[in-house]
C-alpha cells in the first residue's frame, strides 16, 4: 500500500544483514579442521553458510555415502559370499562380483564397485543377508573420470575408516 | 594550448561530419553525426559558451540523435549495406544540387565579414541568459512553450490507441 510493502521488505533484508553479523558463524577461518561441525539449529535469520572445504557437517548415522565392506571380526576378511543379491538389486548395475569356493566356504574373489555410476540408493545393502556391505560416511569421491571404481580391498579399508560394525546398525535393523 | 585543443576538436568534428555523408551504413552515419554534434558542442565550450555547449549535447545528442538512430533501426531494410542503391539513377541530380549548395555556402562564408567582438565573454552568461528569458524575452519564451505543449498534446493524440 503506497510503498509500505516495499519498505517492509527493506526492513526484512536489513534485519538479515544485521543478524548475519550477530549470529551464526562469524569469523570465517576460525573453525578450520576442528573436526565436523554440528548441524545448525533451525532458524530464520543469522549466518548459515558452511565453509565447505574447510569445515564439514557431521553426517547423520544413516547417511548414505560410498558403499563399503565390513570385516568379519573372526577372519578379518569381508563377509561377502558372492551370492549376487546385491548385483541383482542394483538398479544401475554398478556392482560386479565373482566368487570362489562352494557352499558355506564360498567367498567373494573380486568385488568391483563402479563409483561413478552409483546413485546411492542403498538397495544393495537392503538385499544383503550376510552383513557384508553398508553405505559408509564418505562422500568426497570426486574424480576426473567417469569410470572410477573401487575393489574389495579399497572398500574394506573404507569400511575400517567408517567404523561401522554391523549392517543396518544406524537403521534399527540389526537382527 | 587552447589552439591545439581547437584544432583537435575541429578535426574530430570535420572527420565525423564527412563520415555522416560518406559512410555506407546508415547507422554508422548516424553515429558519426553524434560525434559531429558533440564536436560542435565542444567548440561552443571553447568559445566560452558553456551553457550552449551543454544544451547542444543534451538536446542534439541526448534526444534528437537517439530518435534518429531509433528511427533508423526500426525502419525496414535500413541495416543493409546496399541502402544507397536506391539513389543510383539520381546520383547526378544529387551531385548537382549538392554542388550548387556548396558554392552558395562557400560564397556566403567567404563574403561574410566575420566581425569579432572585442569585449571579453562576461562570466555570468547563464545568469544573463536567465534574466533575458524571464525578463525581456518572456513573451516569445512563453509562446514557444505553448507551441511545445501543443505539439506534445498532438503527439499524445497521434500515439493514442484508436
Amino acid at each position, binding site marked *: 500500500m503506497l510503498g509500505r510493502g516495499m519498505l517492509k521488505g527493506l526492513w526484512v*533484508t536489513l534485519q538479515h544483514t544485521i543478524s548475519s553479523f550477530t549470529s551464526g558463524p562469524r569469523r570465517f577461518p576460525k573453525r578450520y579442521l576442528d573436526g565436523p561441525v554440528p548441524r545448525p539449529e533451525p532458524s530464520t535469520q543469522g549466518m548459515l*553458510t558452511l*565453509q565447505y572445504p574447510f569445515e564439514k557437517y557431521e553426517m547423520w548415522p544413516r547417511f548414505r555415502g560410498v558403499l563399503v565392506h565390513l570385516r568379519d571380526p573372526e577372519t578379518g576378511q569381508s563377509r561377502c559370499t558372492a551370492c549376487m543379491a546385491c548385483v541383482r538389486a542394483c538398479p544401475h548395475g554398478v556392482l560386479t562380483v565373482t566368487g570362489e569356493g562352494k557352499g558355506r566356504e564360498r567367498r567373494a574373489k573380486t568385488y568391483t564397485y563402479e563409483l561413478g555410476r552409483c546413485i546411492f540408493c542403498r538397495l544393495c545393502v537392503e538385499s544383503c543377508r550376510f552383513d557384508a556391505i553398508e553405505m559408509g560416511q564418505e562422500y568426497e569421491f570426486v574424480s576426473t573420470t567417469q569410470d572410477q571404481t573401487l575393489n574389495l580391498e579399497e572398500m574394506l579399508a573404507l569400511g575400517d575408516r567408517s567404523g561401522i560394525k554391523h549392517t543396518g546398525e544406524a537403521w534399527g535393523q540389526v537382527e | 594550448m587552447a589552439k591545439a585543443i581547437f584544432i583537435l576538436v575541429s578535426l574530430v568534428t570535420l572527420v565525423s561530419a564527412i563520415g555522416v555523408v560518406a559512410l555506407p551504413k546508415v547507422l554508422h552515419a548516424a*553515429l558519426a553525426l553524434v560525434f559531429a554534434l558533440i564536436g560542435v558542442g565542444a567548440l561552443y565550450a571553447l568559445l566560452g559558451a558553456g551553457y550552449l555547449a551543454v544544451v547542444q549535447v*543534451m538536446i542534439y*545528442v*541526448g534526444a534528437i*540523435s537517439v530518435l534518429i538512430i531509433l528511427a533508423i533501426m526500426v525502419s525496414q531494410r535500413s541495416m543493409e549495406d546496399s541502402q544507397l542503391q536506391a539513389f543510383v539513377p539520381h546520383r547526378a541530380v544529387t551531385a548537382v544540387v549538392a554542388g550548387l549548395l556548396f558554392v552558395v555556402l562557400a560564397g556566403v562564408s567567404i563574403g561574410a565579414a566575420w566581425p569579432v567582438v572585442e569585449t571579453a565573454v562576461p562570466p555570468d*552568461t547563464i545568469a544573463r541568459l536567465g534574466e533575458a528569458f524571464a525578463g525581456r524575452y518572456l513573451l516569445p519564451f512563453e509562446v514557444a512553450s505553448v507551441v511545445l505543449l501543443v505539439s506534445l498534446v498532438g503527439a499524445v493524440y497521434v500515439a493514442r490507441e484508436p
Partner: protein
Amino acid sequence: MGFLDALPLTVMDWLRGLLGQGLPAWGVELVVGLIKVVLILVVAILPVIVLTWLERKVLARGQDRFGPNLAGPYGLVVAFADAIKILTKEDIIPQAADRQVFRFAPALVLIPTLLVFTVVPMGRGMIAADLNVGILFAVAIGSLAVIAIIAATWSSGNKYSLLSMFRSVAQLVSYELPMAFSVLTVVLVSGGLSTVRIVEAQVIPFALVMPIAAVTYFLASLAEANRSPFDLLLGESEIVAGHNLEYSGMRFAMFYIGEYAHIFVIGALTTTLFLGGYQGPILPGYMWFLIKTMAVVYVVLWIRCTWPRMRIDQLLDFSWKLLVPLNLANLMLVALVFKLAGTGLLGSLLSLVVNVGLLVAVGTFLVRRARSSTSRRTRALVLGEV
C-alpha cells in the same frame, strides 16, 4: 578549513610551485591537468574495485551468506580475481555483429560516466573543473550513455539485445525528465548551476528541504544507471543481460566497470545535490563526501537485494504519470515558497511542509481515486486490499 581538510589542495599547490620553477606556465597547467585527469580516473575506477566487492558482500549479507571471503582478507581482492578472469577470456565477436560498432561501443560506455566526475566536488575546493554549468553538464553527459547502449545492443545482432535496446531508449529518455525537474528544483533554490555553489548553498541538506526532489532524483538516477528495480536493460530472467549479452573478455569488462562507476556516480551526485556534499562537522570534507556517497551506494545495493524488477510499461507509467507531474508541482510550490519566504531557515521549513503536504495531497488523491476504482491492481497498490 582545517589542515586535513586542505591537505590535498596544499599538496597540489606545492606541486604547482615545484613545477613552476622548471616549466613555463602552460606546461604547469598541462601537468596539473594531467594529474587531475589521473586522479579522476583513480577516483572513478577505485570505487569500481571496491564496489564489485561491496555489492557481493551486501547482497550476501542480506541473504545470510558470507560473500567472497577467500580472495584476500574478507575477500577484498576479489576484484583482481575478476579482472584476471575477464582479461584472460577469449574475445568473441559474433558473426552477425556490426564489427566496427561492436568494437567501439564498450569504450563509449565508460566515457560519459568518467566525464561526470569532473564536475563533482569531492572536498572543499577539490573539483577538477568548477564549470558554471556544472550540474547541467552532468545531466547532459548522463544522456550520452544511451548512445553507447544503443550502439552496443544494435551492433550485437541479437534479438534479446534488440529488445533491450527498445527498453533502454524508452527508459533512459523518460527518466531524464523527472531527473531534470528535480535538479531544476535544486538549481532554483541554490541559485546557480555550479556544483560547488549547490553544495555551498546547502546549510541544511536539500534532502530535508525538498524530499520529493531528492527521492525522485535518486530513483531517476537508478533508472539511468539501470539498477534494480529499473534494471530492465539487463533483465537477466527474461532477456539474459540484454545489451552486453554478446560481449566477452575486456569488452565486457568495460560494461562492468561502467556499471559500477555509474553506481558511484549516483552516490556522488545525490550527495552533491541533496546531502550537502562535502559539508559536515569535524571530519575533513572529502571524508564526508566519501561517507555520504557510500551511504547512498549502500542504499542502491540494499534495494537491489530486496525489490523485484518493474515491468517496462509500469516503469514508464511511474515516470510520466507520477514522477513528472509530482515534480512539476513540487518545482512550482518550492519556487513560490522560496520567493515568498527567502532561502533562509523559514523558507527551508516551509518548503519541507509544502513537500509533505504535497505528498499527503497526492496520497489522498490516489486513495480517493482507488476507492472508486474497480481495478483490482489499483486497489491493491493503493489501499492494500487483495
